[in-house]
């Protein structure tokens, strides 16, 4: 796919265009002509909005330049330049038909055409089209926002060319980073079909059982593995006015005997809310609102009276029920009653879709996990309840038992057999979960093997072909002495028996850095020796990785902050997921990078071909980046900032990260020699004065706090080499010693202690 065209520059179309551009592909974005004088204004306006979108739609400035605005009247002919045309216009079939008719005459044969429809069956979309068009046509249903939601539902018709469908899917997977789930051409496909049922069932149950909004979300959120917004919070987020629309679309297309028809009724209160403009967060408020008059009080609506009152502290969930789904649905009172009223019908509905909407439990589970951010898919949830119990409960409630559950006959939907993860097929037999080529998951390896080494906070796994993976296992993947211990033990093992090491894990973030909770406790009890050991030990372990006689590739994703960033900086190469938010953020908590980050960042700055000559520019660049605690907004942005090298790799699809990192590591094995330690020429006191002046400027403009100035001063001392003179050279070891010394000074400062404590207790930086 060399070039894409997206037609329809609404939220979805524009977002899809941006993600295609993030993949490095030029995109032509077309919309109607609204202004005869400025014929591209609609698409151009959408691009401008994309640039300002929050969260960001583009991963880099370069990506933003790849989207070109056009209009349907003048530029439709240019689809001939494109390999894939994505239609994302309004959900009106006659408009889509008209567009397709025009497209048919201008597109190159073999150019894929897909619709981003969420409601119109493919069968109807291709009515009146040629065989050739139908062959090249499919539905590609993205989720909002397209950059961040990993799900892509692909629906192919009976006439669709399998090879073309595979080509589109492969591009969406590898280049756009989407997890492709195949769905049949049924209403709502998979995620929205289950999701709409779920929301409706949850809302109905709250009205019927008299459960308050707050209680419903407390029960139906986190304990079920659903984002903590819960149900009402989620509806507020997506827009309450969307509900009748979704309902109308599904009730009009689903057969009359579909269980959704029976529950799809309007609630007068909700209709009134929409009519009054209470459409959720985008409107005057929704089920929740922030009452600014009362002093930013969070209020919730009373489902009986429609009145807002201060959001009450929700019902407490028994501790067993917070983790154990069985305990949750059996909990006494409202907790168990509501949980079952939501889960029972919803999971049964999802299970009933096997055969009709999909043949595959994996597809439905993946769709709900990636499309609705459920922690577990419906079948995984049934496993957690226990299939037999679940069926017994359905029967006790007089509900029909879906065929797949009868077929399962109490067996789990997933199991691990001889180290292999398997799922129950629609044929009643277990099948291995086959990962596509180029997808390697640590969770599969962990199910199949035991770690080579393990400490309380890290583990080492054999991932095949002579490569090992270093996994962080502590809470939030926090880094501590136990991680360093594992690194030290891993190095001789890998040297003797393996070829390369990859730093990788499958937590929600790569690592947000050192275990600050542990550190602040050590600081509070004045265990300075322990703190120093933690810093010096980390320096030693990271440098040992850097100079180990085998290649080390770090594979970050999500947040890679502080020490999580530094382990990447000390690796031979980085293979980053596109959604990597990497940065040295130590200054935010009144510290400076202590595990070699200062030197490594200067090395990268000095390597940059754009860097001016002389000792000062790399120092100034590193100072600017570290002192402002800059965090990259993507892997591409990390290259712009200088955390990543130009040659570091970026993987768009999260599931492909480990395989890519492993391949990169293996590619370096042949003839590998460890790097030569850098020798710095640093500007010393005169350079420090220049940096201090800059900080004073920030202070004067109110951009830096008094303590920022103190921290920046310590950072400047390290980066300029302390007492070094320009004529001296500073070794890496000397720089590390300086880093340690200044770090330890800051640790003892009560203002640093206050910053760390504040960060840990509130999650926000203290600007003291």
């Amino acid at each position: 796919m060399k070039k894409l065209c997206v037609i329809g520059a609404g939220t979805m179309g524009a977002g899809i265009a941006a993600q295609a551009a993030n993949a490095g592909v030029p995109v032509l974005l077309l919309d109607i002509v609204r202004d005869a004088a400025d014929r591209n204004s609609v698409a151009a306006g959408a691009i401008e909005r994309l640039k300002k979108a929050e969260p960001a739609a583009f991963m880099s400035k370069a990506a933003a330049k790849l989207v070109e605005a056009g209009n349907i009247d003048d530029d439709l002919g240019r689809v001939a330049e494109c390999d894939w045309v994505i239609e994302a216009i309004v959900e009106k079939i006659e408009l889509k038909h008209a567009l397709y008719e025009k497209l048919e005459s201008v597109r190159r044969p073999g150019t894929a055409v897909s619709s981003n429809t969420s409601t119109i069956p493919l069968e109807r979309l291709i009515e009146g089209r040629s065989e050739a068009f139908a062959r090249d046509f499919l539905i590609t249903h993205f989720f909002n926002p397209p950059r961040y939601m990993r799900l892509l539902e692909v629906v192919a018709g009976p006439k669709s060319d399998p090879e073309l469908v595979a080509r589109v899917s492969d591009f969406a997977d590898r280049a756009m980073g989407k997890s492709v789930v195949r769905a049949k051409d049924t209403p709502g496909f998979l995620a929205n079909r289950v999701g709409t049922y779920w929301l409706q069932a949850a809302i109905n149950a709250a009205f019927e059982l008299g459960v308050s909004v707050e209680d419903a979300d407390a029960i139906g959120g986190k304990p079920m593995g659903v984002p903590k917004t819960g149900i009402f919070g989620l509806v507020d987020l997506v827009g309450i006015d969307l509900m009748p629309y979704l309902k109308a679309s599904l009730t009009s297309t689903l057969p009359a005997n579909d269980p959704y028809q029976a529950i799809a009724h309007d609630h007068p209160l909700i209709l009134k809310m929409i009519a009054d403009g209470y459409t959720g967060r985008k409107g005057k408020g929704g089920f929740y609102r922030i009452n600014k008059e009362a002093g930013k009080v969070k209020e919730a609506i009373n489902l009986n009276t429609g009145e807002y009152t201060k959001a009450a502290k929700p019902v407490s969930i028994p501790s067993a029920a917070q983790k154990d789904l069985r305990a949750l649905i059996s909990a006494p009172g409202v907790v168990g009653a509501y949980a079952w009223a939501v889960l029972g019908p919803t999971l049964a509905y999802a299970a009933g879709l096997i055969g009709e909407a999909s043949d595959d439990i994996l597809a439905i589970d993946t769709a709900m996990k990636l499309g609705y951010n459920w922690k577990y898919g419906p079948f995984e949830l049934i496993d957690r309840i226990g299939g037999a119990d679940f069926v017994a409960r359905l029967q006790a409630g007089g509900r029909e038992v879906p065929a797949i559950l009868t077929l399962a006959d109490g067996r789990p939907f997933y199991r691990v057999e001889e180290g292999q993860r398997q799922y129950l097929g629609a044929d009643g037999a277990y099948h291995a979960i086959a990962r596509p080529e180029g997808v390697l998951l640590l969770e599969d390896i962990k199910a199949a093997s035991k770690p080579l080494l393990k400490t309380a906070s890290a583990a080492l796994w054999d991932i095949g072909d002579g490569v090992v993976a270093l996994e962080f296992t502590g809470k939030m993947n926090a880094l501590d002495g136990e991680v360093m211990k594992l690194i030290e033990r891993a190095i001789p093992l890998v040297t003797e028996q393996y070829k390369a090491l990859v730093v990788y894990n499958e937590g929600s973030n790569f690592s947000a850095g050192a275990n600050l909770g542990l550190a602040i406790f050590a600081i509070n009890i004045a265990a300075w020796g322990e703190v120093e050991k933690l810093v010096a030990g980390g320096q030693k372990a990271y440098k040992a990785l850097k100079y180990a006689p085998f290649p080390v590739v770090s594979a970050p994703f999500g947040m890679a902050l502080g020490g999580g960033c530094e382990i990447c900086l000390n690796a031979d190469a980085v293979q980053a997921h596109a959604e990597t938010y990497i940065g040295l953020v130590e200054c935010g908590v009144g510290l400076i990078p202590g595990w070699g980050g200062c030197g490594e960042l200067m090395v990268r700055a000095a390597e940059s071909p754009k860097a001016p000559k002389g000792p000062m520019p790399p120092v100034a660049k590193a100072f600017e980046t570290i002192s402002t605690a800059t965090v990259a907004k993507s892997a591409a942005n990390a290259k712009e900032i200088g955390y990543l090298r130009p040659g570091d790799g970026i993987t768009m699809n999260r599931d492909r990260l480990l395989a890519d990192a492993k391949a990169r590591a293996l590619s370096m094995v042949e003839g590998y020699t460890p790097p030569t330690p850098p020798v710095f020429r640093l500007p010393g006191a005169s350079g420090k004065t220049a940096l201090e002046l800059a900080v004073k400027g920030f202070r004067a403009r109110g951009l830096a706090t008094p303590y920022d100035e103190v921290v920046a001063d310590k950072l400047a001392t390290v980066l300029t080499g302390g007492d070094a003179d320009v004529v001296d050279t500073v070794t890496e070891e000397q720089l590390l010693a300086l880093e340690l010394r200044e770090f330890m000074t800051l640790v003892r400062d009560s203002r640093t202690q206050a910053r760390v404590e504040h960060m840990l207790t509130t999650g926000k930086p203290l600007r003291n």
Partner: protein
Amino acid sequence: MQVYTAPLRDMRFVLNELHQDDGFGGLSVHEEFTQDLTDAVLEEAAKICQDVLLPINLSGDSEGCQYENGVVRTPKGFKEAYDQFVQGGWGGLVMPVEYGGQGLPEAVGKLVEEMICATNVSFSLYPGLTAGAVTALNAYASEELKAAYLPKMISGEWSGTMNLTEPHCGTDLGLLRTKAEPVGDGSYKLTGSKIFISAGEQDLTSNIIHLVLARLPDAPKGVKGISLFLVPKFLPDADGNPGARNGVRASGIEHKMGIKASATCQMQFDDAIGWLVGEPHRGLEAMFTMMNAERVGVGIQGLGIGEAAYQSAVWYAKDRLQGRSLSGAKYPDKAADPIIVHPDVRKNLLTMRAYNEGCRALGAWVARGLDAERHAADPEVRQRAEDFVALMTPVVKALFTDLGHDSASLAVQVYGGHGYIHESGVEQYQRDARIAMIYEGTNGIQALDLVGRKMGAHMGRLLRSFFHPVSAFIEENKGEGPMQKMIEGLEKAFGALQLSTATIAEKGLKDPEEAGAAASDYLRLLGLVGMAYCFAKATKIAGLQLFFGTEDKAFYETKIKTATFFFEKILPQATTHFLAIKAGKGALMAFAEDEF
């Protein structure tokens, strides 16, 4: 014989010399209180304690309080002593100036309290409970209530009590049953029974102001449904003088092991009129304000008794002639040597002395924290002082009362068989000291408070207020010199404390029983390190004084000797507690209940 001379020199030392570098500021927040003034206050306090309170201590114990038909009679001399106490203004010593108090720093007030407790701990409870009630009212009551009650309570004309415990609920206040029904005019009618109410009824004051925990009709279950009420014995009339008798009566008094001159009453509330103090259902919070202040006060009771016990034992050890010194007769002209010549008797005496001086020094530091948390100009200092007081309150309460009781027991030991006889006066100390380990939260509860709430609060921030000064002191004074051995001892004990803290924090997170099993050992370990730190500081100051020359040579030389004794003979206990902590809960929980 009960012997007591207030240790004024040591009190001045801990007040004016020992903690000047603690960052809490000098007494400068109370600038009008010069050292001359505080010296005079301490001297005057010593006089009334020695001359008025001490003589009625043993007699009060013998006679006890008498109950008849709802009336309680305190022992002979108590009413006269109380009047003198009130006339001297001692009740309002540290109380707020705006309601007629004298506003002296707590750092001074706690020393005066020590003297009162040393001479008559039963007596101390009457003004002590009033002080607690004033603290709670001042913090939570409406301006109307404050204006109507505080001046008379602060002057000592009226007294205060706290009514928490009920027959079926002590530590677990969630079980509380006393009811409060709104009358409609802003007042409430209270009905229920309370027990163990110190000074619930007495014949010293013209009115008694009870602070009572009770439940409102709409109250949620448990501790979140408890409100605090002010219930006067006599409802004030239009002029604010005691008027109609309210429906609160003592239905009996307890017959106790000790503090017999303190009336411990059973109280009956029958439609007693009261007023809400603070917000509905938030009574426990208000009560804990009072309780926390009281806990430090109870610790001081332990210290006071410890000092009296020490002095009485020293008197006896010098007076009692029995046997000869192991190294040959010291007083050949007498029939026998005084028992003070014996190493073991000395060890008993010096143990008491070291406990007393250690606790006094530590208590003075905490008292400075009490002042700084209220008055320091810098909010950071206030925060640090608040952290420090919160951390050290359970330590002061439990450590001081444990050691006070140990000292009383050692005094009995020094007296031998005579100590077991009532008239010797020292067995009273042991009986009087025993309650302090129990009330205001047992010492076991204090230890749980320390490891369960204080240790982990704000990611361990409270610990900083203690650990950082100790660590800094060690770093500053390490190395060769006259202090070397002492600093090494402190460093070792401090290291054991650091390690124990980390261990308990880590294990306790996963298993609260581990923290519970370590709690009382940990509290003692922290207390030992706290005292060691104070003794090391005292030694440094004394050393400097002696080096530069001082008129008070004897005091400083003795101080160094006491400190040396503490480091050599007491501080090794730190290792014991460290090892016990390290061993974990296993041996405690291995027992099945039927094996007991």
